[in-house]
């Protein structure tokens, strides 16, 4: 997106420089105006530049792509299991769970998530993404799953496919650990996905530790959890 914006800006600058008769390097954009930094009297409205471009049948439109600097030969040819990313984001999830030993119902009173997202351009949005990940990976590991009868999906609706609700959510501590990525846009990496990758593992580990036994299947609905609780008791006996 940043690259696309830069490309669009470049198109505006080129037209404005030509119209104002100044070098491109002298052009600045501010308050809907395009002007010369050397001689601020030389200016025109941005909307006029856009019109001009339109009249030239070359409307301001730009795309931008980005490909990480990786050694494709090394990563994909000589070692075909190589990696694609130019950087890594890191995250840690800590889940506290309480299990009702009689019914197997899980509640999650508290969830802590810390995330290295590069630069947090909009910290509130990053926190939001982290909280969303706790819901859609963490809590979902307890409630969400498809049920099948042969080829027929038994829960194709929002009543039987159980998306966790606000009242099912834990208290969440979302901790942003900033690191400035030298390549990412404004130093950013990504927001939230890393939590999504491990929020469910945190829930799974907590349940496994609480019940003293391992399991193979999500979601951790109370019927399955009760079985775990009972198997766990037998194993420790």
């Amino acid at each position, binding site marked *: 997106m940043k690259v696309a914006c830069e490309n669009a800006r470049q198109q505006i600058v080129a037209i404005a420089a030509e119209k104002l008769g100044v070098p491109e390097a002298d052009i600045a954009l501010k308050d809907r105006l395009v002007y010369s930094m050397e001689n601020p009297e030389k200016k025109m409205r941005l909307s006029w530049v856009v019109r001009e471009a339109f009249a030239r049948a070359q409307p301001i439109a730009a795309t931008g792509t980005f490909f990480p600097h990786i050694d494709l030969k090394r990563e994909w040819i000589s070692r075909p299991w190589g990696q694609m990313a130019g950087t890594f984001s890191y995250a840690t999830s800590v889940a506290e769970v309480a299990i009702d030993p009689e019914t197997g119902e899980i509640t999650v009173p508290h969830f802590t998530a810390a995330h290295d997202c590069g630069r947090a351009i909009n910290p509130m949005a990053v926190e939001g993404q982290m909280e*969303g990940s706790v819901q859609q990976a963490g809590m979902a590991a307890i409630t969400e799953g498809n049920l099948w009868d042969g080829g027929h999906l038994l829960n194709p609706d929002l009543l039987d496919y159980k998306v966790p609700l606000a009242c099912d959510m834990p208290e969440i501590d979302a901790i942003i650990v900033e690191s400035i990525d030298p390549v990412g846009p404004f130093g950013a990496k990504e927001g939230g996905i890393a939590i999504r990758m491990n929020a469910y593992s945190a829930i799974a580990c907590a349940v496994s530790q609480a019940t003293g036994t391992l399991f193979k299947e999500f979601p951790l609905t109370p019927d399955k959890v009760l079985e775990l609780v009972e198997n766990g008791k037998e194993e420790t006996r």
Partner: protein
Amino acid sequence: METVNVTLRINNELTTLQVKPNETLLETLRERLDLTGAKASCGMGSCGACTVEVNGMPLRSCIALTVEMDGAEINTVEGLKEEEKLHPLQESFMEEGAVQCGFCTSGMIMTAKHFWIETLRPPRRDHQGALFQCLPVHRL
């Protein structure tokens, strides 16, 4: 099907419409009156994206008939702001970034409005694709 005349006061404007008996309030708002703030999602009363306010109470408009509403006072998210000033709930949703894609947000706001008291903070941010059905819990 016979059509029926209904008079509604929508966002403080009286409107008289001829509707088919099987038209839901959501269909009327969205398809005839261009009030597309209420969203059509599950259509079964499960999610709340279609919530509007009828006679002071939030209502899931996808499972309510327009003919049932004759004489009702209906408020949609479009009518929340006063002149150019947003409703405090709308403001706080913005300030807190309580939006992911925003599809369900108007339903959230119309539901929250009923439970709105001075101290209320909006529900936790970013329940992406949210079902927010239990706002009452957060009212506390």
